[in-house]
Structures are given as C-alpha cells and as structure tokens.
C-alpha cells in the first residue's frame, strides 16, 4: 500500500511537565475525512499547530506526501498543499472578504515582488477568489470589510481562505466553533461536497458533524491516540465511551 498522505511517527511535544503530544502515530490516507476527537486539553490544537508548522515538535517526525516536513516553515508547507483553518477566527479584519481570499490565491500564484499593477484589477486573482467565496456562500458579501461579517460568515471566510490555496490536505481546527445550528449545517454541507476532492483532517466537538462526515476517527486523550477506526467502531468502543463520550453515551 502507498504511504499515507500525512504520517506522524512518535510525535512528541511537551510544555514544561505537560505532555501535549505523546509519541503520537497518526496516518491520514489520501482522500479520506479523518476526524480527531477528544476532551478539552487532549492536545488537538497543539497537534494541528505542529502539523501546520507553527510549533516545533520536541521529537518524532511528520511526513507529508512522501517527504519529511518536520522542520519545514509554515509557508513552505502551504506551498506543498497543506492548508489550515484556525479555531479562533484568523482573518484580515481591515480588508474586504474578497481581498482576504484573493490574498490566499495570490500566495500560490508566483512571487509577489510585483509593484506596479493594481492587484484589484488582476482577474487571475479576483476570479478564483470570487469562485471560492461563492462556494462557501459568501458571494454577496465579497466587498464587505471582513471585520463587519457575522460570526458564521467569518468562519466561512476562514474556510474560504484555506480552500483558495488549493490544498491537498485541509487541517480544520473546530470549523463549527461557536456556530448556530443553521451555519453548522451549511459548513457540514460544504465539507460533504469537498469529500473526495481533497483530504481533510477535522478537529471538531460537534459529534453530529463528526459522525456525518468522517471516514475514520482518531480519539485523542492526553496527547495519545487511545483508539482509531471507523465511526461505528469508535461509537462502540468501551474505552472511548469511558474516556470521552461520557456517561450519557455509556449508559
């Protein structure tokens, strides 16, 4: 079998005495939606930060598309097709929604030492950006300052910026965080539509969304994977129920 798209081996990250990632072996197969669930403090966001390159692991390796990227800078990982969204919305608040996405397109359209032509007139940047905005349902809001968007719209913009880099692997850190049911349904629909065209690593607390989307689920507790398998297996796993899904599921 070919090497998985993303592979971590004995990945470890400590903050003082706290082990946030504990010799984690994780494999994400090309084309799957792989969900990571776990209680608060299980090390999910720390894991995403290491995969995206913002945090350096203390030991272990990260392989992506057949190459070791453990020490690679974030922007170089992005160039290789790894995109992320942030748990806490991270956008360019003082630019318009369209500018936000156009910048993400621009990042993957050659170097930006172009000083003279107005970026606003470059259809090669604006058209793909508009298409992605339409994909996440923000076509009407293209010219609105990002700061003025509603929370759900900002989350959608967050997703649009990641998609606009045309990634092979999308790291989504709680894309539904703080969303109302209506917005959540929209994002689940969007992600379902993306299934098959790219690989997704999804960290999410919304169990309905996880079980609706995931091909495989890894359960993270105290930095290590206590279980990994198909949604049905995870649902029936006694250890997982005890550690995470809680009494209501165990009863």
């Amino acid at each position, binding site marked *: 079998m070919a090497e998985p798209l993303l592979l971590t081996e004995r990945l470890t990250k400590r903050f003082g005495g706290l082990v946030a990632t504990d010799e984690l072996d994780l494999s994400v197969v090309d084309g799957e939606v792989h969900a990571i669930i776990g209680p608060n403090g299980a090390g999910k966001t720390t894991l995403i930060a290491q995969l*995206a*390159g*913002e945090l350096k692991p203390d030991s272990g390796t990260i392989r992506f598309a057949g190459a070791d990227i453990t020490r690679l*800078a*974030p*922007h170089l990982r*992005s*160039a290789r097709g790894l*995109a*992320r969204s*942030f748990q806490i919305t*991270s*956008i*360019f*608040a*003082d*630019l318009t929604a369209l*500018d936000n996405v*156009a*910048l*993400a397109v*621009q*990042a*993957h359209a050659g170097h*930006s*030492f*172009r*000083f*003279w*032509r*107005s*970026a*606003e007139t*470059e259809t090669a*940047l604006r058209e793909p950006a508009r298409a992605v905005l339409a994909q996440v349902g923000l076509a009407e809001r293209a010219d609105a*300052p990002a700061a003025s968007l509603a929370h759900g719209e900002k989350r959608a913009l967050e997703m649009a*910026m*990641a998609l*606009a*880099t045309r990634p092979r692997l999308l790291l989504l850190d709680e894309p539904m965080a703080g969303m109302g049911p209506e917005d959540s349904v929209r994002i689940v629909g969007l992600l379902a539509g993306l299934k098959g065209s790219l690989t997704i690593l999804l960290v999410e607390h919304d169990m309905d969304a996880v079980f609706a989307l995931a091909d495989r689920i890894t359960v993270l507790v105290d930095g290590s994977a206590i279980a990994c398998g198909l949604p049905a297996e995870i649902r029936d796993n006694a250890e997982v129920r005890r550690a995470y899904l809680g009494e209501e599921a165990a009863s």
Partner: protein
Amino acid sequence: MLRLAGGPRSLPLIGMILLALVPPVSLGLGEPFYIDLFTRIMVFGIAALSLDLVLGYGGMASFSHAAYLGVGAYAMGILSFYGVTDGFVHFAVAGLAAALVALFVGAVSLRTSGVYFLMITLAFAQMVYFLAISVNKYGGDDGLNIKQHSDFAGLIDLDNATALYYLVFGTLVAFLWICGRIVKSRFGMVLRGAKSNERRMSAIGFPTFRYKLAAFVISGAMCGCAGALLANQALFVSPALMHWSRSGEILMMVLMGGTGSLFGPVLGAVVYLVLEDTLSTITSYWQLLLGPILIVIVIFARHGILGLLAGAPRRPARG
C-alpha cells in the same frame, strides 16, 4: 465636522495645488522665506511618506528614519567634498547608500516586532549618528559644509530657491505616485496582510519576512533621496540631522497626518513644521506649546488630520 466640496478624495489634489502655488504667492507677497520653509516641509513630507509606507501599510514602527535621511544627506555632502557635483550621481548614491543601511537594519530588526522592533531600529540609528560624530574627516560634530548644489547637467539651477522648490515638489509628486501604485499592487497587498495578521499570512503561504524587508529598503531609499534634497537646501550636513529626536519628529508627522494614507504624512509635515515655525517666533519655550497640541491632535483625530478633514472614515483610506 469640516467637509470639503468634492469629497475627501479631492483633498490631496487641493493640497498639492496649494503647494505648487507657494513660490509665486510668497514672491508676490515679498516673503521669499516661505519658499525655504515649504521646501523644508516637503523634504520632511517625503521622509514621512517613506515612513508611512512601512508603518501605515506594513505595521513596522521604525525609529530609524532620521538615519536614512542623514545617510542620504551625507552621501551628497561627501561626494561634493571629493568634487563630484553630478546631481544624478548624488541622488543615485544617496538612495543606494540609505537602501543598504536600511537593508542591514531591517534584516536584523525585522526578526522582532512591536516595541522591540522600535528599540532595535533606534539602536541602529544611534550607531549611525555616533559614526557621523566620530568621523572627523567629514566635520565630525561640527558638520560638513557643501560647496555647491547638485548639478543636473545644467538643466536646473539649484542656486535659485524657486528651482530647488520645484525639484523637491516634483520629487514629492513622483514618490506619492510611486507609493500609490505600490500599496495597491500585489506587493502592497502582502504588506497590508502582514500588518493585519502575520500569522495568517504564513499559514496561507507567504514568506512575509522578505516582503517586509523589501518594503523597508524601498522606504530607506526614498528617505535617502529626501536627505540629498535637504543637503542641497542647507548646503550643510551635520550629525544633528540624525539625532534620535528627529526620527521621533518624522514619526509624529505620520501619526498627526494619518497613517496608511500617503498624503496624510505630507499634511502632517506641513502642520508640524508650520506649528514649529510659528510657535518659535512667539516664545523660545515653543516646545512646551507644541507638545500639548500634538497630544490633542493624536488623541482626538484617530486617523490623523487627514482623517478628520475627510470626515473620519472608519478605517484608513485605501491609498
């Protein structure tokens, strides 16, 4: 609130037309002194504009721009000292020398941000200042007299104050235009993105450091040209030009006029230097009066004077 006919967009145009009229008006009034004052104002307008490119668009609060101004002025002075009078050489060397210093300062300072960035740029500027004081060959503390103006192949006679005025005016217009293009280009979008959210820029794939450094070098080069203009006006350069308080003055002009607006810093230079000139004729303690005025402007006009005149937009004008 004060609003201008024709809307905020016409404000820079009106301002530049007024600046273009300064020489005939002051000669008509028999007050040629104003030509000198406004020449100096426009030179500092260029310096403030160059700072705004990195501060207002790139979020880099540099406290070193007096050094680039000084390097440019000394480049012109030292070339003249060795008998080089060609103005094209003067300005090319002034721009390049300041760009090189900015490259070095930026390459080190841009590894930090915020107040650390400010302190490191200040430290480098002080090094350049003390270097100028210690090199006795070029006058040391006393400064260096310059024998003659830059000679642009005999095309313009800079001994004539009006000719010098329009050279500075033309340079200011050119730099405003160039900066206006830059901030809207792909490069400018990267700068604005890096100011807004640098972490996000890395995540979507931008190596922000090299773009910020490039902006810093462009800014330094522009400020160096302003220095060469200043040397032409005074026919004298001294380390005092590079004193750290000068960097603060340029920063103050940008903040007063309005960051991230290109024309704002020019307006800031006008207001700052006219205030300085007016108040210093009233009392020798003019700085005691200037300080409170500056504080009031910065507190009550969050987008600077330009923002105030333009009807206080919710965010900085887009170039």
